[in-house]
Protein backbone atom coordinates (compact mmCIF):
# COMPACT_ATOMS: atom_id res chain seq x y z
CA UNK A 1 0.00 0.00 0.00
CA UNK A 2 1.52 3.35 -0.94
CA UNK A 3 2.17 5.95 1.74
CA UNK A 4 -0.49 8.55 2.50
CA UNK A 5 2.24 11.19 2.30
CA UNK A 6 5.84 11.20 1.10
CA UNK A 7 8.02 14.24 1.79
CA UNK A 8 11.53 14.32 0.40
CA UNK A 9 14.19 16.99 0.94
CA UNK A 10 11.66 19.69 1.74
CA UNK A 11 13.11 23.18 2.22
CA UNK A 12 11.32 26.46 2.81
CA UNK A 13 12.94 29.89 2.93
CA UNK A 14 11.38 33.31 3.44
CA UNK A 15 13.81 35.64 1.68
CA UNK A 16 17.21 34.87 3.21
CA UNK A 17 15.77 33.22 6.27
CA UNK A 18 15.84 29.44 6.01
CA UNK A 19 12.83 28.05 7.91
CA UNK A 20 13.03 24.35 6.97
CA UNK A 21 15.92 22.60 5.34
CA UNK A 22 16.09 19.11 3.91
CA UNK A 23 13.16 17.58 5.80
CA UNK A 24 12.19 14.05 4.74
CA UNK A 25 9.53 11.78 6.22
CA UNK A 26 6.55 9.66 5.27
CA UNK A 27 3.17 8.77 6.78
CA UNK A 28 1.41 5.49 6.20
CA UNK A 29 -2.36 5.43 5.71
CA UNK A 30 -4.19 5.44 9.03
CA UNK A 31 -1.04 6.34 10.96
CA UNK A 32 -0.67 9.21 13.37
CA UNK A 33 2.40 11.43 13.03
CA UNK A 34 3.21 13.90 15.78
CA UNK A 35 5.31 16.93 14.88
CA UNK A 36 7.21 18.46 17.75
CA UNK A 37 9.91 21.08 18.14
CA UNK A 38 10.63 24.36 19.90
CA UNK A 39 8.93 27.62 18.95
CA UNK A 40 10.20 28.95 15.64
CA UNK A 41 11.32 25.54 14.38
CA UNK A 42 8.90 25.75 11.44
CA UNK A 43 6.09 23.39 12.46
CA UNK A 44 3.26 25.57 11.15
CA UNK A 45 5.29 26.47 8.05
CA UNK A 46 5.70 22.73 7.39
CA UNK A 47 1.89 22.36 7.40
CA UNK A 48 1.53 25.30 5.04
CA UNK A 49 4.04 23.69 2.68
CA UNK A 50 2.09 20.41 2.88
CA UNK A 51 -1.17 22.14 1.90
CA UNK A 52 0.62 24.13 -0.79
CA UNK A 53 0.21 27.66 0.56
CA UNK A 54 3.92 28.48 0.87
CA UNK A 55 6.46 27.93 -1.91
CA UNK A 56 9.00 25.20 -1.22
CA UNK A 57 11.80 23.12 -2.70
CA UNK A 58 11.73 19.33 -2.60
CA UNK A 59 8.86 16.90 -3.07
CA UNK A 60 5.53 16.73 -1.23
CA UNK A 61 3.51 13.80 -2.56
CA UNK A 62 0.06 12.97 -1.25
CA UNK A 63 -1.52 9.62 -2.22
CA UNK A 64 -3.93 10.01 -5.16
CA UNK A 65 -7.43 11.03 -4.05
CA UNK A 66 -6.26 12.44 -0.71
CA UNK A 67 -8.74 14.85 0.87
CA UNK A 68 -7.21 17.10 3.50
CA UNK A 69 -9.00 18.53 6.51
CA UNK A 70 -6.88 21.31 7.98
CA UNK A 71 -7.29 22.70 11.48
CA UNK A 72 -5.14 25.83 11.86
CA UNK A 73 -3.89 26.90 15.28
CA UNK A 74 -5.62 30.24 15.28
CA UNK A 75 -7.22 32.64 12.87
CA UNK A 76 -7.33 36.40 13.02
CA UNK A 77 -11.09 36.99 13.18
CA UNK A 78 -12.73 40.31 13.99
CA UNK A 79 -15.05 40.07 16.99
CA UNK A 80 -17.90 41.73 15.12
CA UNK A 81 -17.65 39.74 11.87
CA UNK A 82 -21.32 38.98 11.13
CA UNK A 83 -20.72 35.35 10.31
CA UNK A 84 -22.02 32.57 12.53
CA UNK A 85 -20.40 29.18 13.03
CA UNK A 86 -23.29 27.62 11.12
CA UNK A 87 -22.88 30.10 8.23
CA UNK A 88 -19.27 28.99 8.03
CA UNK A 89 -20.03 25.26 8.14
CA UNK A 90 -22.85 25.55 5.59
CA UNK A 91 -20.47 27.34 3.23
CA UNK A 92 -18.17 24.32 3.52
CA UNK A 93 -21.06 21.92 2.85
CA UNK A 94 -21.92 23.92 -0.27
CA UNK A 95 -18.35 23.99 -1.63
CA UNK A 96 -17.64 20.35 -0.73
CA UNK A 97 -20.92 19.27 -2.34
CA UNK A 98 -22.23 17.46 0.74
CA UNK A 99 -25.71 17.85 2.31
CA UNK A 100 -26.09 20.87 4.60
CA UNK A 101 -27.09 18.44 7.37
CA UNK A 102 -23.41 17.40 7.61
CA UNK A 103 -22.87 20.67 9.48
CA UNK A 104 -25.04 19.51 12.39
CA UNK A 105 -23.48 16.02 12.26
CA UNK A 106 -19.96 17.48 12.43
CA UNK A 107 -20.98 19.70 15.36
CA UNK A 108 -22.32 16.65 17.22
CA UNK A 109 -19.06 14.80 16.54
CA UNK A 110 -16.92 17.58 18.04
CA UNK A 111 -19.49 18.12 20.83
CA UNK A 112 -20.17 21.76 20.06
CA UNK A 113 -23.83 22.67 20.73
CA UNK A 114 -25.74 24.15 17.77
CA UNK A 115 -26.73 27.08 20.02
CA UNK A 116 -23.03 28.00 20.34
CA UNK A 117 -22.38 27.50 16.62
CA UNK A 118 -25.23 29.90 15.88
CA UNK A 119 -23.24 32.78 17.38
CA UNK A 120 -20.85 35.01 15.38
CA UNK A 121 -17.49 33.20 15.10
CA UNK A 122 -15.56 36.16 16.52
CA UNK A 123 -17.37 35.79 19.85
CA UNK A 124 -16.54 32.09 20.43
CA UNK A 125 -13.99 31.16 23.10
CA UNK A 126 -10.65 29.61 22.09
CA UNK A 127 -11.85 26.07 22.78
CA UNK A 128 -15.21 26.57 21.05
CA UNK A 129 -13.56 28.06 17.97
CA UNK A 130 -11.08 25.17 17.89
CA UNK A 131 -13.97 22.70 17.86
CA UNK A 132 -15.71 24.67 15.13
CA UNK A 133 -12.56 24.53 12.99
CA UNK A 134 -12.35 20.80 13.63
CA UNK A 135 -16.00 20.39 12.58
CA UNK A 136 -15.19 22.41 9.42
CA UNK A 137 -12.24 20.12 8.67
CA UNK A 138 -14.29 16.95 9.21
CA UNK A 139 -17.01 17.94 6.74
CA UNK A 140 -16.62 16.58 3.21
CA UNK A 141 -15.15 13.29 4.52
CA UNK A 142 -11.40 14.00 4.57
CA UNK A 143 -8.90 11.13 4.49
CA UNK A 144 -6.18 13.11 6.26
CA UNK A 145 -6.44 15.50 9.17
CA UNK A 146 -3.76 18.16 9.69
CA UNK A 147 -4.10 19.63 13.17
CA UNK A 148 -1.96 22.50 14.44
CA UNK A 149 -1.74 22.52 18.25
CA UNK A 150 -5.29 21.44 18.97
CA UNK A 151 -5.05 22.18 22.67
CA UNK A 152 -3.52 25.66 22.63
CA UNK A 153 -5.84 27.84 24.71
CA UNK A 154 -7.98 24.90 25.77
CA UNK A 155 -8.49 23.82 29.41
CA UNK A 156 -7.34 20.37 30.50
CA UNK A 157 -10.65 18.46 30.50
CA UNK A 158 -11.41 19.72 26.95
CA UNK A 159 -7.86 18.81 25.98
CA UNK A 160 -8.35 15.18 26.96
CA UNK A 161 -11.68 15.22 25.11
CA UNK A 162 -10.08 16.51 21.92
CA UNK A 163 -7.38 13.85 21.93
CA UNK A 164 -9.93 11.12 22.65
CA UNK A 165 -11.89 12.39 19.64
CA UNK A 166 -8.83 12.06 17.38
CA UNK A 167 -8.38 8.47 18.56
CA UNK A 168 -12.01 7.71 17.78
CA UNK A 169 -11.80 9.30 14.32
CA UNK A 170 -8.77 7.23 13.52
CA UNK A 171 -10.35 3.99 14.58
CA UNK A 172 -13.79 4.60 13.11
CA UNK A 173 -12.94 6.41 9.90
CA UNK A 174 -9.39 5.22 9.27
CA UNK A 175 -8.19 8.83 9.20
CA UNK A 176 -4.51 9.59 8.84
CA UNK A 177 -3.62 12.26 11.39
CA UNK A 178 -0.74 14.73 11.36
CA UNK A 179 -0.61 16.66 14.58
CA UNK A 180 1.58 19.49 15.83
CA UNK A 181 1.84 19.12 19.58
CA UNK A 182 3.64 20.29 22.68
CA UNK A 183 2.35 17.35 24.68
CA UNK A 184 5.48 15.20 24.68
CA UNK A 185 4.08 12.61 27.07
CA UNK A 186 1.05 12.12 24.89
CA UNK A 187 3.15 11.95 21.74
CA UNK A 188 5.36 9.31 23.34
CA UNK A 189 2.43 7.09 24.23
CA UNK A 190 0.04 7.61 21.40
CA UNK A 191 1.69 8.61 18.13
CA UNK A 192 2.90 6.01 15.64
CA UNK A 193 5.74 8.23 14.46
CA UNK A 194 7.38 11.49 15.46
CA UNK A 195 8.95 14.25 13.40
CA UNK A 196 11.09 16.45 15.60
CA UNK A 197 12.03 19.76 14.01
CA UNK A 198 14.89 21.85 15.29
CA UNK A 199 16.47 24.93 13.80
CA UNK A 200 19.35 22.82 12.50
CA UNK A 201 17.83 19.59 11.33
CA UNK A 202 14.87 17.23 11.53
CA UNK A 203 14.62 13.80 13.15
CA UNK A 204 12.04 11.26 12.07
CA UNK A 205 11.25 7.89 13.59
CA UNK A 206 9.27 6.01 16.20
CA UNK A 207 8.55 7.87 19.45
CA UNK A 208 10.92 5.78 21.55
CA UNK A 209 13.77 6.39 19.07
CA UNK A 210 13.17 10.13 18.81
CA UNK A 211 12.08 11.15 22.29
CA UNK A 212 15.32 10.45 24.12
CA UNK A 213 16.48 12.72 26.92
CA UNK A 214 19.69 13.60 25.08
CA UNK A 215 17.94 14.51 21.84
CA UNK A 216 15.25 16.59 23.54
CA UNK A 217 17.92 18.44 25.48
CA UNK A 218 19.82 19.06 22.26
CA UNK A 219 16.75 20.25 20.33
CA UNK A 220 15.01 22.29 23.01
CA UNK A 221 18.28 23.54 24.51
CA UNK A 222 17.08 22.88 28.06
CA UNK A 223 16.08 20.06 30.34
CA UNK A 224 12.78 18.82 29.00
CA UNK A 225 10.95 16.38 31.18
CA UNK A 226 7.81 14.53 30.39
CA UNK A 227 5.97 12.02 32.48
CA UNK A 228 4.05 9.08 31.17
CA UNK A 229 0.37 9.00 31.99
CA UNK A 230 -0.89 5.78 33.50
CA UNK A 231 -4.01 5.72 31.37
CA UNK A 232 -2.82 4.93 27.90
CA UNK A 233 -4.39 7.15 25.28
CA UNK A 234 -4.47 6.04 21.72
CA UNK A 235 -4.16 8.83 19.21
Amino acid sequence: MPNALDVRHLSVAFGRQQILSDVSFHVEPGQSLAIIGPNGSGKTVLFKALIGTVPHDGAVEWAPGTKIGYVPQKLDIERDLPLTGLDFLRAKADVAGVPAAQAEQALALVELPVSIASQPIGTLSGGQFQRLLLAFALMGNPSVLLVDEPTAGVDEPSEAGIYALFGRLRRERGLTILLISHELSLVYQAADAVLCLSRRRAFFGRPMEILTTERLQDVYGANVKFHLHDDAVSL
Partner: protein
Amino acid sequence: MTMPSASDLLLPLAMAVAAGLVGSYAVMRRMTLASDAISHVALPGVGIAILLNVNPVLGALAALILGTLLIWAVERQARIPTEAIIGVVFSAALAVGSMLASGEELLDALFGAPRAMSGMEVVLGLAAALLVIGFLVRARSRLVIALVSPDLARTTGINVSRIDLLFLLSFALTVALGLRFLGVLLMGSLIIIPAATAKQVAGSLRGMQATSVAIAVVATVAGTLIAPSIHRETGPVVIIIAALGFFASLMVRRER
Protein backbone atom coordinates in the same frame (compact mmCIF):
# COMPACT_ATOMS: atom_id res chain seq x y z
CA MET B 1 -34.85 69.33 -12.72
CA THR B 2 -37.80 66.98 -13.17
CA MET B 3 -38.90 64.09 -11.06
CA PRO B 4 -37.44 60.78 -12.27
CA SER B 5 -39.84 58.22 -13.72
CA ALA B 6 -40.04 54.58 -12.63
CA SER B 7 -37.94 53.45 -15.61
CA ASP B 8 -35.26 56.01 -14.66
CA LEU B 9 -35.02 54.26 -11.31
CA LEU B 10 -34.43 50.78 -12.73
CA LEU B 11 -30.69 51.10 -13.37
CA PRO B 12 -29.92 52.95 -10.10
CA LEU B 13 -31.86 50.23 -8.29
CA ALA B 14 -29.84 47.42 -9.89
CA MET B 15 -26.65 49.39 -9.17
CA ALA B 16 -27.65 49.78 -5.50
CA VAL B 17 -28.30 46.04 -5.09
CA ALA B 18 -24.89 45.25 -6.62
CA ALA B 19 -23.22 47.91 -4.42
CA GLY B 20 -24.86 46.55 -1.25
CA LEU B 21 -23.72 42.99 -2.01
CA VAL B 22 -20.19 43.85 -3.17
CA GLY B 23 -19.81 46.13 -0.15
CA SER B 24 -20.76 43.39 2.32
CA TYR B 25 -17.79 41.31 1.18
CA ALA B 26 -15.47 44.32 0.86
CA VAL B 27 -16.18 45.30 4.47
CA MET B 28 -15.81 41.72 5.76
CA ARG B 29 -12.51 41.48 3.85
CA ARG B 30 -11.38 44.69 5.59
CA MET B 31 -11.03 46.46 2.27
CA THR B 32 -12.69 49.70 3.38
CA LEU B 33 -9.76 51.95 2.53
CA ALA B 34 -8.69 49.97 -0.50
CA SER B 35 -12.22 50.22 -1.88
CA ASP B 36 -12.15 53.99 -1.87
CA ALA B 37 -8.77 53.93 -3.55
CA ILE B 38 -9.91 51.47 -6.24
CA SER B 39 -12.77 53.75 -7.22
CA HIS B 40 -10.36 56.67 -7.69
CA VAL B 41 -8.50 54.80 -10.40
CA ALA B 42 -11.49 55.37 -12.68
CA LEU B 43 -10.56 59.03 -12.91
CA PRO B 44 -7.57 58.87 -15.29
CA GLY B 45 -9.71 56.56 -17.46
CA VAL B 46 -12.43 59.20 -17.61
CA GLY B 47 -9.82 61.86 -18.46
CA ILE B 48 -8.31 59.82 -21.27
CA ALA B 49 -11.76 58.93 -22.64
CA ILE B 50 -12.73 62.62 -22.74
CA LEU B 51 -9.47 63.45 -24.56
CA LEU B 52 -10.13 60.66 -27.08
CA ASN B 53 -13.79 61.60 -27.38
CA VAL B 54 -15.15 58.19 -26.34
CA ASN B 55 -17.75 57.32 -23.71
CA PRO B 56 -16.20 58.24 -20.30
CA VAL B 57 -17.72 55.16 -18.65
CA LEU B 58 -15.78 52.92 -21.07
CA GLY B 59 -12.55 54.76 -20.24
CA ALA B 60 -13.30 54.41 -16.54
CA LEU B 61 -14.04 50.71 -16.89
CA ALA B 62 -10.77 50.11 -18.75
CA ALA B 63 -8.81 51.97 -16.06
CA LEU B 64 -10.66 50.12 -13.27
CA ILE B 65 -9.88 46.73 -14.81
CA LEU B 66 -6.21 47.66 -15.15
CA GLY B 67 -6.14 48.92 -11.54
CA THR B 68 -7.83 45.75 -10.34
CA LEU B 69 -5.32 43.52 -12.10
CA LEU B 70 -2.55 45.58 -10.49
CA ILE B 71 -3.96 45.16 -6.96
CA TRP B 72 -4.53 41.48 -7.55
CA ALA B 73 -0.96 40.99 -8.75
CA VAL B 74 0.38 42.90 -5.74
CA GLU B 75 -1.77 40.90 -3.32
CA ARG B 76 -0.45 37.65 -4.77
CA GLN B 77 3.07 38.70 -3.86
CA ALA B 78 3.12 38.05 -0.13
CA ARG B 79 5.15 40.26 2.19
CA ILE B 80 4.64 43.43 0.18
CA PRO B 81 2.73 46.07 2.15
CA THR B 82 -0.38 46.06 -0.05
CA GLU B 83 -2.04 48.96 1.75
CA ALA B 84 0.91 51.24 1.13
CA ILE B 85 1.13 50.38 -2.56
CA ILE B 86 -2.61 50.76 -3.04
CA GLY B 87 -2.50 54.14 -1.31
CA VAL B 88 0.34 55.46 -3.45
CA VAL B 89 -0.85 54.08 -6.80
CA PHE B 90 -4.37 55.36 -6.39
CA SER B 91 -3.49 58.79 -5.06
CA ALA B 92 -1.30 59.04 -8.15
CA ALA B 93 -4.30 57.95 -10.26
CA LEU B 94 -6.33 60.78 -8.74
CA ALA B 95 -3.56 63.27 -9.51
CA VAL B 96 -3.14 62.07 -13.11
CA GLY B 97 -6.90 62.03 -13.62
CA SER B 98 -7.37 65.57 -12.37
CA MET B 99 -4.63 66.75 -14.74
CA LEU B 100 -6.28 65.05 -17.72
CA ALA B 101 -9.84 66.19 -17.02
CA SER B 102 -10.67 69.76 -16.14
CA GLY B 103 -13.42 72.01 -14.83
CA GLU B 104 -16.96 70.80 -15.32
CA GLU B 105 -15.90 67.38 -16.65
CA LEU B 106 -13.79 66.77 -13.57
CA LEU B 107 -16.64 67.67 -11.21
CA ASP B 108 -18.98 65.39 -13.15
CA ALA B 109 -16.49 62.55 -12.96
CA LEU B 110 -15.89 63.06 -9.25
CA PHE B 111 -19.45 63.56 -8.06
CA GLY B 112 -21.58 62.20 -10.91
CA ALA B 113 -24.08 63.89 -13.19
CA PRO B 114 -27.07 61.71 -13.93
CA ARG B 115 -28.53 62.63 -17.27
CA ALA B 116 -30.57 60.94 -19.92
CA MET B 117 -28.94 57.67 -20.94
CA SER B 118 -29.34 55.92 -24.25
CA GLY B 119 -31.33 52.71 -24.35
CA MET B 120 -28.12 50.83 -25.08
CA GLU B 121 -26.41 52.27 -22.00
CA VAL B 122 -29.30 51.21 -19.79
CA VAL B 123 -29.32 47.67 -21.22
CA LEU B 124 -25.55 47.28 -20.82
CA GLY B 125 -25.74 48.73 -17.31
CA LEU B 126 -28.48 46.31 -16.29
CA ALA B 127 -26.57 43.40 -17.80
CA ALA B 128 -23.44 44.37 -15.85
CA ALA B 129 -25.40 44.71 -12.60
CA LEU B 130 -27.01 41.30 -13.10
CA LEU B 131 -23.59 39.79 -13.84
CA VAL B 132 -22.18 41.15 -10.57
CA ILE B 133 -25.21 40.12 -8.50
CA GLY B 134 -25.29 36.66 -10.11
CA PHE B 135 -21.60 36.06 -9.39
CA LEU B 136 -21.83 37.22 -5.77
CA VAL B 137 -24.85 35.03 -5.08
CA ARG B 138 -23.36 31.96 -6.76
CA ALA B 139 -19.89 32.36 -5.24
CA ARG B 140 -21.17 33.19 -1.76
CA SER B 141 -19.79 30.10 0.00
CA ARG B 142 -16.40 30.33 -1.70
CA LEU B 143 -16.12 34.03 -0.88
CA VAL B 144 -17.04 33.42 2.76
CA ILE B 145 -14.47 30.68 3.31
CA ALA B 146 -11.74 32.63 1.50
CA LEU B 147 -12.33 35.72 3.62
CA VAL B 148 -12.13 33.74 6.87
CA SER B 149 -8.91 31.95 5.87
CA PRO B 150 -7.22 31.55 2.49
CA ASP B 151 -5.50 28.43 3.86
CA LEU B 152 -8.80 26.77 4.75
CA ALA B 153 -10.19 27.83 1.39
CA ARG B 154 -7.32 26.16 -0.41
CA THR B 155 -7.71 22.87 1.47
CA THR B 156 -11.43 23.02 0.62
CA GLY B 157 -10.48 23.02 -3.06
CA ILE B 158 -11.14 26.71 -3.71
CA ASN B 159 -8.92 28.53 -6.20
CA VAL B 160 -8.28 31.50 -3.91
CA SER B 161 -6.41 33.64 -6.36
CA ARG B 162 -9.14 33.20 -8.99
CA ILE B 163 -11.98 34.00 -6.60
CA ASP B 164 -10.04 37.08 -5.38
CA LEU B 165 -9.65 38.28 -8.97
CA LEU B 166 -13.32 37.72 -9.79
CA PHE B 167 -14.35 39.58 -6.64
CA LEU B 168 -12.10 42.55 -7.43
CA LEU B 169 -13.44 42.62 -10.99
CA SER B 170 -17.02 42.65 -9.78
CA PHE B 171 -16.05 45.48 -7.44
CA ALA B 172 -14.58 47.41 -10.39
CA LEU B 173 -17.67 46.75 -12.51
CA THR B 174 -19.93 48.03 -9.71
CA VAL B 175 -17.88 51.25 -9.45
CA ALA B 176 -18.18 51.71 -13.23
CA LEU B 177 -21.95 51.16 -12.96
CA GLY B 178 -22.30 54.03 -10.54
CA LEU B 179 -20.00 56.49 -12.29
CA ARG B 180 -22.63 58.42 -14.22
CA PHE B 181 -24.87 58.47 -11.26
CA LEU B 182 -22.64 59.07 -8.24
CA GLY B 183 -19.19 59.77 -9.63
CA VAL B 184 -15.77 58.37 -8.72
CA LEU B 185 -15.61 59.73 -5.17
CA LEU B 186 -19.13 58.89 -4.09
CA MET B 187 -19.54 55.45 -5.68
CA GLY B 188 -16.89 54.00 -3.36
CA SER B 189 -19.01 55.39 -0.51
CA LEU B 190 -22.23 53.74 -1.74
CA ILE B 191 -20.37 50.42 -1.72
CA ILE B 192 -18.83 50.84 1.73
CA ILE B 193 -21.31 52.84 3.87
CA PRO B 194 -24.39 50.54 3.62
CA ALA B 195 -22.21 47.46 4.27
CA ALA B 196 -20.39 49.10 7.20
CA THR B 197 -23.80 50.05 8.62
CA ALA B 198 -25.13 46.53 8.18
CA LYS B 199 -22.07 45.11 9.93
CA GLN B 200 -22.92 47.17 13.01
CA VAL B 201 -26.41 45.77 13.37
CA ALA B 202 -26.41 42.27 11.81
CA GLY B 203 -25.38 39.06 13.54
CA SER B 204 -25.34 36.70 10.58
CA LEU B 205 -24.20 36.69 6.96
CA ARG B 206 -27.72 36.67 5.54
CA GLY B 207 -28.75 39.47 7.90
CA MET B 208 -25.77 41.60 6.94
CA GLN B 209 -26.30 41.18 3.21
CA ALA B 210 -30.02 41.86 3.35
CA THR B 211 -29.46 44.97 5.51
CA SER B 212 -26.63 46.24 3.31
CA VAL B 213 -28.69 45.86 0.12
CA ALA B 214 -31.76 47.43 1.77
CA ILE B 215 -29.79 50.49 2.94
CA ALA B 216 -28.13 50.97 -0.47
CA VAL B 217 -31.51 50.70 -2.23
CA VAL B 218 -33.35 53.01 0.19
CA ALA B 219 -30.57 55.64 0.08
CA THR B 220 -30.44 55.49 -3.74
CA VAL B 221 -34.19 55.68 -4.31
CA ALA B 222 -34.78 58.30 -1.59
CA GLY B 223 -31.83 60.37 -2.84
CA THR B 224 -33.04 60.19 -6.43
CA LEU B 225 -36.54 61.30 -5.44
CA ILE B 226 -35.51 63.99 -2.93
CA ALA B 227 -32.63 65.62 -4.85
CA PRO B 228 -34.73 67.31 -7.59
CA SER B 229 -37.12 68.83 -5.08
CA ILE B 230 -34.30 70.47 -3.08
CA HIS B 231 -32.43 71.42 -6.30
CA ARG B 232 -29.29 69.45 -5.54
CA GLU B 233 -27.31 66.80 -7.43
CA THR B 234 -28.42 63.23 -6.70
CA GLY B 235 -25.06 61.70 -5.67
CA PRO B 236 -24.34 63.80 -2.57
CA VAL B 237 -27.95 63.45 -1.35
CA VAL B 238 -27.77 59.64 -1.70
CA ILE B 239 -24.53 59.47 0.27
CA ILE B 240 -25.77 61.84 2.99
CA ILE B 241 -28.82 59.61 3.51
CA ALA B 242 -26.58 56.51 3.66
CA ALA B 243 -24.23 58.24 6.12
CA LEU B 244 -27.15 59.22 8.37
CA GLY B 245 -28.09 55.54 8.42
CA PHE B 246 -24.54 54.66 9.51
CA PHE B 247 -24.61 57.10 12.44
CA ALA B 248 -28.02 55.80 13.47
CA SER B 249 -26.60 52.25 13.45
CA LEU B 250 -23.81 53.32 15.81
CA MET B 251 -26.47 54.33 18.31
CA VAL B 252 -28.40 51.10 17.85
CA ARG B 253 -25.21 49.12 18.40
CA ARG B 254 -24.37 51.06 21.54
CA GLU B 255 -27.76 50.27 22.95
CA ARG B 256 -27.47 46.53 22.27
